[in-house]
């Protein structure tokens, strides 16, 4: 940590430039390039159309990346567990819907490209008001206040017509006719590129924010707020500013949501959306800046892909979440970072064998588990909906014994084998870490 800081400080400024930026931030630039070209992989050249499903999923990923990162500004960077983060997204969305409708009506010529800024300011404004109350407390009390605020705003959204539109929500039309580049924003692909641009800007801004004194103080207040206070900082002020800025980015996500769907309902402020932020951030990893990005991509992909195939999405999400909390509290990014010292020592290859041996049992357990869950699901919900469970044209009867026995056997055999393989991995892991440590000890 200190070593790299020294290196940064002593590096001559002239060396910094496009090349330096490319070398240090190449994964981000690669991701951005990928985001720009990926819709064209699914372009239907015969009809000259983009795949609607793909563009919709990609747009959702962009929105959720901003949302998850803004959530991590609280959870990961400031140690504030919020249960009402969707409120900031939703309120930003409502503000945007009203402003876009007004712009369409000719009240002011606001270019559509800048409306996310309006949503961001809306989220910022509400975050200042709500954060004034919420950030008076920290830890569990903060979590409970945000839970209360979340439920409060959800109830309000269902109750008041003028601003929230009640149960029907507020709908708008994004084709306002005002654009910086003369675009109409009728086709979803144009909105997708707007989302890509704003996601890039927001991610960069949030990344830079972590390197400001504010970002560092947020870390300090998370790790030891009494000591931060002792040094002369007001932890409450740090929490408040962090909350307000997080609200700004959540508001941008809300605005992009409004532009994509052209309607905002109470779903955007309700608890499931807040839980989604938690899920994405935690599965991705709170300790690493890019963690929530990984989590957002994974969760949205799983959500839209699994929910096409099965109606038990919540079970899979819940189990994945519980496994992460129990065995990998650092999330996916944390798991990757664990391998960094081994990779630096050039010994990652030693772990390849044990990891490959894990593949078989994991596959068995996965198939067994999915089979069991789907059998349960088709026993009740599927029957009620008149669906049948088919696996490549073979209809499986969930009322019969054999499929259940197969699922049970797969789970049991896979479980035992997995345990054995995990032990092998643990031994190999320990051996490698010992090897890395020993020369350091000698030196």
């Amino acid at each position: 940590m200190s070593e790299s800081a020294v290196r940064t400080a002593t590096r001559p400024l002239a060396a910094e430039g496009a090349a330096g930026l490319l070398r240090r931030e190449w994964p981000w630039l690669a991701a951005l390039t990928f985001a720009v070209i990926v819709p064209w992989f699914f372009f239907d050249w015969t009809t000259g159309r983009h795949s609607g499903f793909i563009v919709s999923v990609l747009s959702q990923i962009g929105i959720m990346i901003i949302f998850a990162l803004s959530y991590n500004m609280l959870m990961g960077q400031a140690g504030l567990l919020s249960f009402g983060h969707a409120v900031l997204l939703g309120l930003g969305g409502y503000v945007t819907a009203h402003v876009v409708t007004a712009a369409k009506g000719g009240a002011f010529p606001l270019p559509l490209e800048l409306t996310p800024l309006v949503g961001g300011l809306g989220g910022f404004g509400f975050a200042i008001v709500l954060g004034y109350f919420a950030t008076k407390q920290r830890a569990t009390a903060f979590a409970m206040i945000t839970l209360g605020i979340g439920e409060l705003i959800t109830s309000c959204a269902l109750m008041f017509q003028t601003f929230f539109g009640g149960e029907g929500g507020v709908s708008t039309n994004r084709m306002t006719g005002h654009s910086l580049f003369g675009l109409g924003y009728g086709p979803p692909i144009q909105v997708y590129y707007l989302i890509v641009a704003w996601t890039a800007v927001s991610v960069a801004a949030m990344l830079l924010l972590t390197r400001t004194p504010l970002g560092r103080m947020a870390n300090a207040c998370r790790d030891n707020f009494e000591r931060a206070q002792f040094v002369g900082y007001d932890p409450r002020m740090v929490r408040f500013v962090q909350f307000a800025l997080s609200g700004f980015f959540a508001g941008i996500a809300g605005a992009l949501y409004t532009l994509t769907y052209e309607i905002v309902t109470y779903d955007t402020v309700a608890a499931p959306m807040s839980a989604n932020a938690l899920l994405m951030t935690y599965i991705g990893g709170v300790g690493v800046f890019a963690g929530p990005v990984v989590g957002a991509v994974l969760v949205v992909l799983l959500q839209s892909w699994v929910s096409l195939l099965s109606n038990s999405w919540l079970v899979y999400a819940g189990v994945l979440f519980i496994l992460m909390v129990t065995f990998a509290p650092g999330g996916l990014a944390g798991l990757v970072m664990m391998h960094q010292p081994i990779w630096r020592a050039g010994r990652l290859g030693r772990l390849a064998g044990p990891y490959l041996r894990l593949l078989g049992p994991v596959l068995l357990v996965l198939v067994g588990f999915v089979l069991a869950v789907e059998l349960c699901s088709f026993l009740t919900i599927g029957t009620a909906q008149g669906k049948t469970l088919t696996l490549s044209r073979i209809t499986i009867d969930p009322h019969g014994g054999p499929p259940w026995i197969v699922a049970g056997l797969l789970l049991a055999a896979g479980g035992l084998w997995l345990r054995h393989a995990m032990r092998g991995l643990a031994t190999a892991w320990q051996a490698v870490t010992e090897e890395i440590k020993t020369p350091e000890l000698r030196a």
Partner: protein
Amino acid sequence: MEGLCHMEVLLVSLLNGLVYGMLLFMLASGLTLIFSMMGVLNFAHASMYMLGAYFAYSVSRVIGFWPALVVAPALCGALGALIEMYALRRVHKNGHIAELLFTVGLAFIIEKAVQMAWGLLPVPYRVPAALDRALFHVYGSNFHAYRGFMLLISVLMFFAIWLLLTRTRIGLVIQAALTHPEMVGALGHNVPRVFTIVFAGGSVLAGLAGVIGGNYLVTEPSMAATMGPIVFVVVVFGGLGSLAGCFVASLIMGLVQTFAVVLDVSLADLLARLGVTVASTNPLAEVLTIPLPRVGALLPYLMLILVLLIKPRGLMGTRDT
């Protein structure tokens, strides 16, 4: 306003509020014990309440309501003990946030599991025939026998907890561990076992609340999600580490929610009494003229936020939340 002037409405609402408040207490007492002792904000607690109702529905179809009154909470208790021993204890080393998130994941899974096992629609879990009648009449309004039964069960349970906590050895250890868990461990008591007992006991209480509340309200997959936040509000409102505070908070919450439904007034009515009339052109007209029954759902959360801001310890809490 004239609703208040009628004695019977007041009395019946008071009784209903009491019944609801006691039901809340049955849920909140377990949660407050778990929260105060283990520091775990158990999001799956309301799921245990839901499981209690569903277990009772299934069991009562086979062997009747009365055995179900014992069997369903026992099942919930066993499940709670298993969760604590084999999962929560493992997560414990990852910190409080991880434990809390674990229970959030558990709540997801239980909700979906209930949907898969019993379907998406409410199940016809009914009040037993013996209690499905009016107990007595108050100024022409009926008081249902089942509500009397609920009140009886919750009062019995209240005394049972009280006796257990003040008159038995394990109760004294639990009480000590509420405020000084480290010291209790240092004195040689098996704190993990106490944790398991408290977690299982809390699950039993939540299950019991589900058994008697499931047929009074509705037994459906979303019942945990609707009850959960309110129980949290009660626990925080009453204060950590205080069963008495939890009791008072439950009753206040029950009464507030019941009376909010009965009193048909709005802020505009209140202002009219003070001689201020609210015109419909007033930008705040929508907020001011909304009647109290429609705002009823908001009140618990307003109370939660207010109490956390003014008195972070809650009504009778012994330490900060």
